[in-house]
């Protein structure tokens, strides 16, 4: 594991930049420019820029990944002409959306209409600031990172419903209603599944949770919780088979019916940001984060940034599972969805909490992924 961290990298860049900028100024300004506060401020800016750029690029590559995978599931090829294997196709599509006009319906509420896509995208992006992707490669490390991430993650229905209501369109309104009902229904099993993980790890800090998986990844004892979490995440992300809020067959495009051009791009980007966050959470909570089992040869884990590489590989594979589900299952009805959420997922999640408690009580080490303790 390399010792560099995102903070140290941005600190180095900021100090280097300021040292060169200060060179042209007279001494008093020079001294102020190279002082600790200014460097820290620029560090924070560079930090955010790197984080934003990396997450946006990942989001767009995620769209490419979904298109390619979905193509294979449907016996076709997906995007393939722009860039290597169509990698740049989504940049071209984004550029097209960027150039398009955004039209607001005359009867729509202006503030809500403009506010909701931006707020939806921003709240989704904020989560990246606290998600660790390797040791040291995270923004803030709080004792309650996991809870904070889930809280920000569950802001979404608010802004979706705001946009749907402000659109002043019946389809958008129905979609927004469905979205709110669905997201609230699936918050409960998700949080219960997370409780199981927290019971096993003994912490709400994501880095600690990953470190606690050094002996065995949590999916082995908590397979039930993993299933519940995956299902709940599918519902939270509004992906097929839980894409009722934007059921194209019934509601034109669901809650973003009235949105076009860049506003639609915001919603779409925010959706994929949420898919990425969901996949990252699955990897962090159940699949050992950036760690690999000890029987993996050290060649594979000792190169620079190995943690981040393996982490992203896992994230993309988890997202592949979401794509697999999308390619397989038809859309559910509202009553089926809510019955599944409240009557199947909640009891299963409670059961997995009990299982986690039993595991902790018995100190039982499962066979899979079992490695000798690293101490600490």
């Amino acid at each position, binding site marked *: 594991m390399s010792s560099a961290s995102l903070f140290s990298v941005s600190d180095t860049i900021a100090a280097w930049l300021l040292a060169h900028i200060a060179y042209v100024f007279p001494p008093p300004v020079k001294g102020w420019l190279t002082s600790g506060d200014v460097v820290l401020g620029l560090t924070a800016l560079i930090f955010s820029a790197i984080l934003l750029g990396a997450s946006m690029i990942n989001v767009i590559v995620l769209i490419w990944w979904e298109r390619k*995978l979905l193509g294979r*599931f449907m*016996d076709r090829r997906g995007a393939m002409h722009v860039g290597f294997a169509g990698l740049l196709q989504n940049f071209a599509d984004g550029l097209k959306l960027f150039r398009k006009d955004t039209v607001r319906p005359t009867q729509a509420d202006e503030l809500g209409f403009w506010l909701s896509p931006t707020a939806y995208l921003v709240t989704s992006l904020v989560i990246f600031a606290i998600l660790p992707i390797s040791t040291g490669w995270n923004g803030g490390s709080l004792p309650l990172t996991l809870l904070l991430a889930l809280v920000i993650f569950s802001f979404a229905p608010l802004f979706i419903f705001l946009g749907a209501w402000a659109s002043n369109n019946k389809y958008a309104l129905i979609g927004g209603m469905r979205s709110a009902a669905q997201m609230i229904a699936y918050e409960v099993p998700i949080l219960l599944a997370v409780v199981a993980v927290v019971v096993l790890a003994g912490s709400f800090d994501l880095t600690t949770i990953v470190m606690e998986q050094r002996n065995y990844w949590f999916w082995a004892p908590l397979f039930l919780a993993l299933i519940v979490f995956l299902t709940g995440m599918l519902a939270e992300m509004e992906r097929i088979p839980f894409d009722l809020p934007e059921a194209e067959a019934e509601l034109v495009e669901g809650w973003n019916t009235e949105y076009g051009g860049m506003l639609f791009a915001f919603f779409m980007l925010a959706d994929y940001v949420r898919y990425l966050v969901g996949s990252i959470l699955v990897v962090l909570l159940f699949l050992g984060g950036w760690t690999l089992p000890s029987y993996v040869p050290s060649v594979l884990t000792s190169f620079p940034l190995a943690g981040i590489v393996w982490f992203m590989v896992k994230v993309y594979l988890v997202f592949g599972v979401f794509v697999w589900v999308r390619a*397989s299952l038809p859309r559910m009805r509202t*009553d089926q969805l809510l019955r599944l959420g409240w009557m199947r997922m909640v009891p299963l999640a409670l059961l997995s909490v009990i299982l986690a408690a039993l595991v902790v009580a018995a100190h039982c080490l499962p066979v899979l992924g079992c490695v000798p303790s690293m101490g600490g």
Partner: protein
Amino acid sequence: MAESGAQAPAPIPGTEQRPLLWVTRPLATAARQFAKSLWRPSTIIYPFERLEDPKFRGEVAVASGKPIGVGEIWDNYRGVHALNINTCISCNLCAFSCPDVCIEMVTVPGGDPKHPKKCPQIDYGKCSFCGFCSDACPEGCLSMTTRYELSVHKREDMVYSPARMFEVFKSKLPMNPIRVERPKNEDQILLDPPICIGCNACSRDCPTQCITMLDIPKPTPKPGEKLAKRIWKEPVINDSDCVRCGTCISVCPKDCLFWGTRQ
């Protein structure tokens, strides 16, 4: 609950006892499809791959009793024209027969400066691929091939010059073998002898060289009568060689040639 009012749909057969199958069976199907198409989906990347490729060939389709391979084209397909410039006699019949007026006779190198060689140039923006031109061609030098790809970026590129169609000819594509036998025209080219001035234009321009100018006796003028100023020759048309193109009629300066039936 919503289900109290709604009619419950009939369960999928075989899944009544095991509702989990409702989820696992589609997942398995999708995974199988994924594994099958992981290396090569069945999409044929058309401009880069074609069904004509041998790897896609398999005898399935049967047209008129003759089995052909997948992606092969029936040989009576009417596609882009192939023109054999060397045998073209510049008779203009293709342009006459074209119902869309898309054929223009353009000069090609190879003729002598006085009688430029003219070959058809086809505007595929207008062409309806009826095949009348290839039926009309007396020499069989204009025929239709199986080439069907006509997409171009510019409208001007839709116009195929004789040289371009000669390239098509040289690529040895299968030619449409079906050619309506052109009926021998009942009418023949007749001459109105008193008007003819023996100018040789018809003989000169005849694409098949079937007109020969024969000497006619110069009459002895009666006293007081002026002889017409003319060359004392008259065209004689070899009917078996004539392709009935009408070039002689159109070039005749005195309009002394006309269509008619010889008694």
